[in-house]
């Protein structure tokens, strides 16, 4: 069984069963990563393109490696070096890429909804690699894979998402995915970085880090974009750290075996204390490896439809 859809634009539209399938499929994919020869022929002859309108290192590398491990050819278009700089429209760029025979496009864009827009333009599959502040489905899937690997399931799990919820596509995708899988999600951050009406997504909203962290099983720490301070959304980085930084003292409020996740890149000493980032409870390094496995699973399920499992198990 594969994913019976053309695109993966967000976790909002995925069912719990589909999420389960992706997570399950990522398990054997992760095994491939530990092999001597990390290449399977499953997607041989397929072409995956990354189209990145926003700087990114890890997401793009992760997708490209995932595609290559699966045997696909990859190409990448970064806006800084493309004709987009010369004023080419999004539609023209998309059609140009598609006419080169690309099967799947990975899009990263600073404007929310751009993945939907691309999916309407091209016949190729589109995987959202992060659109504006809306969704970043593969990040949430790798976060969920990491949690499940350590804890076995999501039911009843208390997951805290800590930081700038307002501007975070990682937060939104995690909320969709985790609530669908039965976790209890708490969001916490300064009120000026909390989107109005987010409680309607079925999460508990906190403004005090201590309250949210009480008894938590998982803490997902979001990156603080330092330019938000310049817009006056919080007074100083110093005060932010004092109120919301995940310090060893705050971590003690959570369960003793609580996991600490961070999508990276980290601002050590701002949203997360170095001791916490490097502690045994931190899964930050493993998340990166899991990201490749999740993306291999997704490419496989979308492009191969799961019809063949040649070379995987």
């Amino acid at each position, binding site marked *: 069984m594969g994913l019976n859809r053309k695109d993966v634009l967000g976790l909002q539209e995925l069912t719990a069963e589909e999420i389960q399938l992706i997570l399950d499929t990522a398990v054997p994919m992760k095994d491939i990563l530990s092999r001597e020869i990390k290449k399977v022929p499953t997607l041989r002859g397929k072409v995956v393109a990354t189209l990145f309108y926003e700087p990114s290192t890890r997401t793009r590398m992760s997708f490209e490696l995932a595609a290559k491990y699966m045997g696909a050819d990859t190409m990448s278009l970064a806006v800084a070096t493309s004709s987009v700089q010369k004023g080419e429209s999004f*539609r023209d760029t998309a059609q140009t890429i598609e006419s080169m025979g690309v099967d799947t496009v990975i899009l990263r864009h*600073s404007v*929310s909804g751009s993945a939907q*827009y691309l999916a309407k333009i091209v016949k190729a599959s589109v995987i959202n690699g992060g*659109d*504006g502040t*809306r969704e970043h489905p593969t990040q949430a899937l790798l976060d969920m894979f990491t949690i499940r690997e350590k804890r076995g399931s999501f039911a009843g799990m208390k997951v805290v998402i800590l930081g700038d919820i307002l501007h975070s596509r990682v937060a939104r995708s995690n909320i969709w995915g985790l609530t669908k899988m039965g976790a209890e999600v708490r969001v916490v951050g300064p009120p000026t970085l909390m989107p109005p009406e987010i409680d309607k997504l079925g999460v508990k909203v906190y403004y005090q880090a201590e309250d949210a962290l009480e008894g938590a099983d998982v803490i997902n720490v979001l990156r603080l974009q330092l330019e938000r301070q310049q817009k006056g959304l919080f007074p100083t980085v110093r005060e932010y750290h004092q109120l919301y930084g995940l310090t060893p003292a705050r971590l003690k409020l959570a369960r003793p075996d609580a996991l600490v996740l961070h999508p990276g890149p980290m601002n050590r000493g701002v949203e997360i204390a170095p001791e916490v980032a490097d502690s045994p409870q931190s899964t930050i390094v493993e998340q990166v490896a899991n990201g490749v496995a999740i993306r291999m699973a997704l490419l496989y399920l979308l492009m191969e439809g799961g019809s063949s499992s040649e070379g995987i198990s």
Partner: protein
Amino acid sequence: MKVLVKGGRVIDPANGLDLVADVLIDQGKIAAIIPDGQSQADAAGGADKNPSAEVTVIEATGKLIVPGLIDMHVHLREPGFERKETIASGTRAAARGGFTSVVCMPNTQPVADNRAVIEFIINQARSTGVVNVYPIGAITKGSRGEELSEMADLAAGGAIAFSDDGRPVMNAQIMRLALEYAKIGDWLIIPHCEDLNLSAEGQMNEGYWAMLLGLKGIPAVAEEAMIARDLMLAEMTGSRLHIAHVSTAGSVQLIREAKKRGIRVSAEVTPHHLVLTDEAVASFSTSTKVNPPLRSEKDRLALLEGLADGTIEVIATDHAPHTLEEKDCEYNYAPFGISGLETAVPLVWSELIEKKVISLEKLIACLTVNPARILGLAKGSLGIGEEADLTIIDPEMEQIVRVDDFVSQGKNSPFDGWQLKGWPVATIVKGRVVMKNGQV
């Protein structure tokens, strides 16, 4: 040259008329309204002993004959943005939409902040337009909100009111000065109420849908805070204010209370704010991107209530055409605006009349005599001797909106594909038929 519009239901709120009658037009003026059953030969013959050869007859049985509709808020884009719209194409869109008069905003290039641009628009409308065009002058030079424009000279050149529409007058002192200066001619000031600090970088209404879609919100208070300020300034100065494109429940309440206090204020609402909510943005179709943004269902219901209780007395389209290329892009990069002239009548018919929100007479007043009175125009009435501007509406006609059929250059409509009822079928300007059965 005579025209006889036959057998329709004549609704003329200005004169309290609602009857089945024929309307006789002679020399571009309303010559007679002949109630059903009376011999038209008597009346027509009374005006002319040899009528038949010269009278053009327009059959209107089963249809509504109303004063020519007035849209007091459109963007014709000329001069400067002729790829979006021209006075020729915009007035044809008006005619197709049943409007015989349009009032155009000054955010052209150059801005209509000087008499030369106002006179250009008037002359261009005379030579290329098909409906009456009344230009609005800018409140401030370049609509930059810093210094007053030459309002007296603009008025002398034909500016009918003043607005910096598209931009607010952010400086309260400048708005106070504009309202005071307007006393020279009891001119009308039409503010675009938006606090730019509150709305900065906003793409859509702030709330549930903006949160879900990850788009920066424009809070209702960005509009309401400015309306509150301008109402206080109008109260202080005693000058006249007309609030453009009211979009929130709080705005309606502020205007309702201001009217009770005796402040000289009127207000308009667009068809799209009466019909759509911010949920429509979930499609990420840039045709839903408009300023003020589509609001919540609670706001939409308050706008309907405001119309019903008379707080809002005008329906205006805020017709804002853009090119296909400008709108075919990522949501944040698209300009704000909906091309509204050619869908206004069936939208309000379907939303307000079919759903019995307001009476037919009230709807017609919102599109005719009310804007005419606010603007001081001798229009919006079927009084004998008045210029014969008429619109004929077929209340039973149902068809699908096709933006490809728009005569406006702006195809940016979120209503493409909608099945709507109650379409204008003829538009008559000064006795001349400028649109019949959708053909301009």
